[in-house]
């Protein structure tokens, strides 16, 4: 039986889950900070994973600066950032991190009665871009600090 999903519950879950993913996989402490707009990045790497089911559809975007994405990749693979040989390694890790974050949301939605499937990850790279949600979807931006770095989780979600 599907329960009514509330956006604040989604953002609260995603806040806890992002912190958990960074702590467990990377031993990095992320902390939610106020704000709803994407900060400026010199260069940005964005992982995206879509989700869709009968009662809920949307996508999760994980935005990191290029330099922090490289640090994240190194931490996940147990090497130094200097040992990262190409962009593909960074893309793989950012995609996998986005997959884990969205997989958690999928599980949470399924337990709330809104079964859905997730897509394979995709990566966007660039300096200045924004991702527009479909007109009937809600857009939530969650900002985190991890040391001197910013992490942004952008959620586009349509319920019902």
């Amino acid at each position, binding site marked *: 039986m599907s329960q009514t999903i509330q956006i604040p519950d989604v953002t609260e879950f995603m806040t806890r889950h992002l912190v958990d*993913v960074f702590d*467990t996989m990377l031993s990095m402490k992320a902390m939610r900070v106020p704000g709803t707009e994407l900060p400026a990045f010199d260069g940005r790497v964005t992982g995206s994973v879509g989700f869709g089911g009968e009662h809920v559809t949307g996508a999760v975007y994980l935005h990191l600066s290029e330099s922090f994405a490289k640090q994240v990749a190194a931490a996940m693979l*147990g090497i130094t950032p200097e040992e990262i040989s190409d962009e593909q390694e960074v893309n793989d890790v950012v995609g996998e991190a986005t*997959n884990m974050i*969205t*997989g958690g949301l999928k599980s949470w939605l*399924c337990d709330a009665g809104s079964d859905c499937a997730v897509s394979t990850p995709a990566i966007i790279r660039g300096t200045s871009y924004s991702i527009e949600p479909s007109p009937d979807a809600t857009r939530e931006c969650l900002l985190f600090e991890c040391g001197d770095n910013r992490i942004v989780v952008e959620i586009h979600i349509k319920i019902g």
Partner: protein
Amino acid sequence: MAIKILSVDDSRTIRLIVGKAFKPYDCTMLEAGNGEEGLVVAAREKPDLIILDVTMPVMDGVTMLTKLKEDAVLKVIPVIMLTAESGRDNVLQIARLGVRDYLVKPFKEDQLVEKAGRCVTLVKRAAAPTAPAA
């Protein structure tokens, strides 16, 4: 003789993390990028343990596990499922298929090693000999 561990995951990142987790142990790591490749490697190499992702293209982990369990030789190989989805239905489905254990992503490497250690005997690699002082 080194334990053979087969990591089946479409994510190269996860395969690298799994390989890193077992680096201190006397293990031979084998890899496959989906269930179809995983079955081929399993039939050829007869691994002692399979670490199997659930969601993969070409052939997913559930289908691969079902086929393993239908094979008289391969069905005895212990399987630990790795899944990014911790939902009740997903976990129940995995449990019904007869896996030895499962681990939800994100996971810590020592959690994986601990679960693997319940299925196979992991022996630490001997430390590399140090060069004699000049």
